[in-house]
């Protein structure tokens, strides 16, 4: 955190944005355009959970979702066992700062034996004329044999500089399943630090898919602890950066128990003078026999000035393991380019098609069809230079978007 300490301090000097009027209808702030997704919105504006008069909602099936501050007041027995429970060695200065000073965040509680049909969509929007420091803390608990999907959108719209520091603590009980989709579309003046900690019990499954469309400065840390046998974590990521954007993905997966599986597939395209980092660290502890762990990081560098720092890293203390790791930094497949061009496709379009295919691979691992289609479309638009910060509100704002689908492939 050293390089940012000064910046953090400086931002702290600014007065925190006041909480938005709680009685304004949520719809005035957020509209998600993605049809057929049936998601339940959990909106955050400038770091505050936005609601009309219900900071916390309890659903019929016992699921609780809403403001973490409200949860601490109303359900201490549900949240306290999972709040600020990070190991000392997992903490950094930013995390400590977050633990002490977070203003708000999201709490989601899923009781045992509950399949939550509709995904929760946490939309975190920053819209401020003033410079802004946001510290959010989220706690997500999924009970035994339960299932949940979360879509988290981090966007910023305009004006001031922002510094966002988010800590998310996720607990998956036995045989619980969580699909965690994240999109980040941040403008250049924003810094986003996302720290995600996952603790998994036996037979639980964690699937995450993080897509960074625009970065400013983004740092995604994911720490997964596979604490009990037969737990599984599959982590996918995509970063599309250009200009002077920076995107760091730091992943740590610790196999503490036997028979667990983990996989990582991260891909990135870097243009101009952008920079990206992939640090994937898998630790297989001595007792974690029969571990399967796979790591892949693939990058396309479009210019000489773009940089990737990739370090897939396996640290193995058990002997009965099946592990692999690899990283590639390269250009597009020349044979494929030739094939496309030999059908009359110009070189530029051919490159774009291949780039899209490369990136879209990550979207293919999204299980919600409507979200998958939308993400693919956004990737396409991003690569065409059409998904800019100005129209990034297409995520939320139905009126201002002017979406042109070049091909409705689903009909073919």
């Amino acid at each position, binding site marked *: 955190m050293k390089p940012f300490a000064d910046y953090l301090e400086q931002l702290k000097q600014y007065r925190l944005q006041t909480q938005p009027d709680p009685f304004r209808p949520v719809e005035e702030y957020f509209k998600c355009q993605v049809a057929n997704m049936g998601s339940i919105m959990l909106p955050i504006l400038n770091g505050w959970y936005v609601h009309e008069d219900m900071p916390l909602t309890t659903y019929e099936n016992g699921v609780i979702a809403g403001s973490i501050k409200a949860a601490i007041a109303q359900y201490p027995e549900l949240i306290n066992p999972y709040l600020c429970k990070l190991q000392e060695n997992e903490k950094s200065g930013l995390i400590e700062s977050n633990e002490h000073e977070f203003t708000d965040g999201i709490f989601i509680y899923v009781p045992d034996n509950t399949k939550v049909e509709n995904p929760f969509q946490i939309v975190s929007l920053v819209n401020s004329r003033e410079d802004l420091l946001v510290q959010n803390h989220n706690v997500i608990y999924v009970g035994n044999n339960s299932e949940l999907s979360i879509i988290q959108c981090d966007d910023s719209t305009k004006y001031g500089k922002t510094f966002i520091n988010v800590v998310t603590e996720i607990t998956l009980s036995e045989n619980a399943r969580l699909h965690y989709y994240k999109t980040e579309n941040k403008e250049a003046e924003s810094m986003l630090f996302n720290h995600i900690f996952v603790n998994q019990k036996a037979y639980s499954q964690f699937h995450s898919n993080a897509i960074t469309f625009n970065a400013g400065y983004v740092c995604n840390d994911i720490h997964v602890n596979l604490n009990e046998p037969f737990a599984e974590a599959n982590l996918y990521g995509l970063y599309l950066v250009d200009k002077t954007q920076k995107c760091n993905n730091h992943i740590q997966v610790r196999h503490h128990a036997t028979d667990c599986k983990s996989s990582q597939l991260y891909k990135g395209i870097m243009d101009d003078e952008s920079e990206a980092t992939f640090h994937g660290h898998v630790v297989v502890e001595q007792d974690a026999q029969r571990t399967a762990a796979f790591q892949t990081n693939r990058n396309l560098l479009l210019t000489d000035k773009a940089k990737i720092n990739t370090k897939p890293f396996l640290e193995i203390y058990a002997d009965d393991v099946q592990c692999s790791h690899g990283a590639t930094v390269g250009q597009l497949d020349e044979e*494929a380019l030739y*094939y496309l061009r030999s059908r*009359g496709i110009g070189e530029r*379009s051919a490159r774009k*098609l*291949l780039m899209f*295919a490369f990136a879209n691979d990550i979207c*293919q691992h999204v299980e919600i069809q409507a979200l998958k289609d939308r993400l693919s479309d956004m990737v396409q638009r991003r690569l065409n230079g059409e998904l800019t910060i100005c129209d990034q509100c297409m995520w939320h704002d139905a009126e201002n978007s002017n979406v042109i689908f070049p091909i409705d492939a689903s*009909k073919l």
Partner: protein
Amino acid sequence: MLKIEDLHVSIKGREILKGVNLNVNAGEVHAIMGPNGTGKSTLASVIAGKDGYDVTGGNIIFKGKNIMDMSIEDRAREGIFIGFQYPVEIPGVSIANFMRTALNEIRQYRGLDPLNGAQFLKLMNEKKKIVELTEKLSTRSVNEGFSGGEKKRNEIFQMAMLEPMLSILDETDSGLDIDALRIVANGVTKLKTKENATIVITHYQRLLDYIVPDVVHVLFDGKIVKSGPKELALELEKRGYDWIKEEYEQGKLI
């Protein structure tokens, strides 16, 4: 339509084509046969404009234009199509999107309006029938996970979509089972008109039973050493290439 004059091509300093001459007119079917490694695929690649070949001499004239300096895509837009011997797999690019992009770029080059989604869909469904394709092409990536035969069938489907002036089919028959061979060959025959031309590169007479050639050429040691009527293919199948080799070495050919 196609006129190749004394074409010399080297790969990494080794001369592969040593003076190829070939004349193909509209409405004709030519077959090129010849032993492995004599440069048949190289010839197709050079006509397509692939990088990595040193053309040390000669010209390729297509529809009266010298195409030697033309880009790969412009040659395709002018109407040249290669059915590849080894089609590449392109994961993540759907066949539909691929064809739509190709078709519309070709149309743009020719000053035509792009096809809209519905028009494209209709066209694609028509063309699928030509090679009896039933797959959903919007979800299948180009050649990914296709069997050898499916890849070849997909090449002919693309040919049907793009309606080239000159098609060069490089061993399109290899890897096809009996039914697929019939389907592919009938497909090619259906696409034949008075205006277009086809060059089939093959090792087997079988294909030529369906696609009857006007001329059969033998490419040997980087040159077309013998040309003849369709019966030449039968003779080659019966006698192999030894006699060609002998005659060539004795200077009886060319």
